[in-house]
């Protein structure tokens, strides 16, 4: 039983880190533009297709070059989306327009993927697919890399927001757009940078989940939903909250399968979402988020 618990714990933490990254990505867009981006799971998918489908499988590039190129392309895609769509949506009278806009954007990205890469699923052979056996436990290289990269990414984001001029400007926009504009910060430019950053995080999530779920049009659907749950459970709009919420969901849903059938694993996450919305809508770290 202890082997099973430990094994589930490792898987739970790895998936939790993925949910955290998705939650962070939601949070960045929300804080910068006040938009709930429902197209982000398709951006994760797009990142995976560019990296795996084009850079590795078609162009046969080395992994580091493929990663850098994909990040660059996704950064440009993010900036274009912000300039062409998000900057206009966030200033509309009703949030409904913005939400519908991002839902339609998801559909457009999805169809673009189908037309460009075809409808078949893909796998990147040799990409994070090793398994290490330590004692009685199996640990995949994907799980190890996910945990390390997620921690590094969070640390880099923290440094970026606290110690760089651009990061500080983005935090100002997040806190009060009107005041930031009066202080000479270009709001639209700030949203462009945030969205570019967010799209690059989507690409990173795409790289990391390829060995777990393969590349397919629906590869990030569940992950996207759980990332949203992690944001709500941790405290929406607060990056440490998204991290805590993601790890919490990942671990709880996996350990829950010891007591309930695995088919209800997803239900556990969504049940937690409803419970938090009813009992503590501000999430785990809601007070801190509100106090900022």
């Amino acid at each position, binding site marked *: 039983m202890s082997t099973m618990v430990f094994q*589930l714990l490792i898987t739970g933490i790895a998936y939790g880190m993925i949910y955290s990254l998705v939650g962070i990505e939601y949070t960045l867009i929300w804080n910068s533009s006040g938009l709930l981006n429902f197209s982000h799971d398709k951006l994760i998918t797009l990142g995976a297709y560019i990296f795996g489908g084009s850079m590795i499988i078609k162009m046969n590039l080395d992994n580091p070059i493929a990663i850098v190129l994909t990040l660059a392309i996704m950064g440009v895609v993010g900036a274009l989306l912000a*300039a062409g769509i998000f900057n206009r949506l966030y200033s509309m009278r009703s949030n409904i327009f913005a939400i519908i806009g991002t839902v339609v954007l998801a559909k457009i990205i999805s169809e673009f993927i189908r037309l460009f890469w075809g409808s*078949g*699923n*893909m796998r990147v052979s040799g990409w994070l697919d090793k398994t290490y056996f330590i004692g009685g436990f*199996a640990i995949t290289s994907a799980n190890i890399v996910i945990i390390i990269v997620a921690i590094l990414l969070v640390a880099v984001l923290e440094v970026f927001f606290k110690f760089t001029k651009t990061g500080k400007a983005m935090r100002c926009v997040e806190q009060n757009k009107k005041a930031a504009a009066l202080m000479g910060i270009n709001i639209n430019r700030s949203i462009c940078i945030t969205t570019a950053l967010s799209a690059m995080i989507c690409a990173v999530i795409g790289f990391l989940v390829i060995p777990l779920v*393969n590349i397919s049009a629906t590869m990030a659907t569940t992950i996207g939903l759980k990332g949203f749950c992690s944001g709500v459970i941790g405290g929406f709009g607060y990056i440490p909250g998204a991290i805590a919420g993601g790890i919490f969901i990942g671990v709880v849903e996996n350990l829950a399968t010891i007591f309930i059938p*695995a*088919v209800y694993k*997803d239900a556990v996450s969504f049940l937690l979402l409803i419970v938090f919305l009813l009992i503590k809508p501000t999430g785990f770290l809601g007070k801190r988020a509100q106090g900022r």
Partner: protein
Amino acid sequence: MKKLLALFLAGAMMLSLAACGGDDTKETEAAKVTAADTKAAETKAADTKADETKGAGEEKPAGNGETYKIGLAAMLTGDNALNGERMQKASEMVIAQYNEAAGYEKFVLNTEDDLTTNEGALTAVQKLISDGCLAIIGPHRSSAALAVSDTVAEQQVCVLVGGTSVAIDGSNNYMFRTRASDAIMATVAATFCKDTLEAKKVGILHASDEYGQGGADAAMAFFDAQGIEYVDCPHNVNDVDFTSAILECQSAGCDTVFTWTHDAETAIIYQQLATYMPEVNKIASPGLTLDNVLNLCEDNWVDGAYSVTDFISTSTDTVAVDFVKAYEGLYGETPDLYAAAYYGAAVTICEAILACEEAGEVTPQAVRDAIAAGETKTLPTGDFYNDDANNLVHSCVIAKLNGKAPEFVQSVSE
């Protein structure tokens, strides 16, 4: 900036429209089918009596020069688009063969995208019926077939569906099944577990939807009857992490794992089985023999695993060999079970229409009756004939994976 946004959105809309459009070149390619492939159809077409029949829903004489519409509701977009593409290719191949045999465009294939959704399937079927199709190939999935069941019964236009669920029970006279049912295939797989793999305890990993549950129920009924222990591990469609279910099978001491689920999930389950239970005996639903699953797997994940399926391209059966050759010649790719199953469906409809033409009445009802009463035809997926439950196919194949190559083990008939 407004202009840029407008241009971007217009471009996206054009791409979407292009996706919905047909590909005219396919029909041209399909017309290149060899004369040998069309011999059977030619004989039928030559016997056709002129001016004796009536078109679908129209009181006009048929015969030489008459054109008949056949519908295709295929999954051209959505989760199963690749399989829908195979449905379309196989159907177009058959239509081209029969048109070449007739010497003119006798059959027209009206294709509608069912979006791989139940609502999409219903819309597609309604559109095809309103277009005057005599019979419809598809929809493929069981849940989509059930969604269109009432409509086709009311409109009295038959559909030849690929859904293998036991819920498609033959109670609808206008719905025929063109693949062996889950009850047959899963029972064959369970029997193989007992007789060949000598299973003592079986872990059953299956999707919790109509398809997965139907297969698992048939297997569990067999194991219950045989006194073989099993662990039931359902999962949701589109799940990506099966660690919990596999660890449950491992801790329960299962010596065999029986998987009955969809293509994407099958690949991930086999990856995770290779990590946590590499030595366990494995048998899977038909998806494991498909290229779109095997391309997602490493050799060692699937090597030695078995699969129960409708068709494998390495079959030594003459009809199957000829079909594979013709399909590869036309499209430059190896056909899979989707291509084989819907090739059979399209041939069945064309033959039924020709029979109606001979009899002097070509209406949707007459075509339905001709399919129900049709003679046995040997097609790539086996002998096609109708039974009391409107099943047209009654056999399946057991394949063993040698590396990633499916090899024929045995054919099992009902």
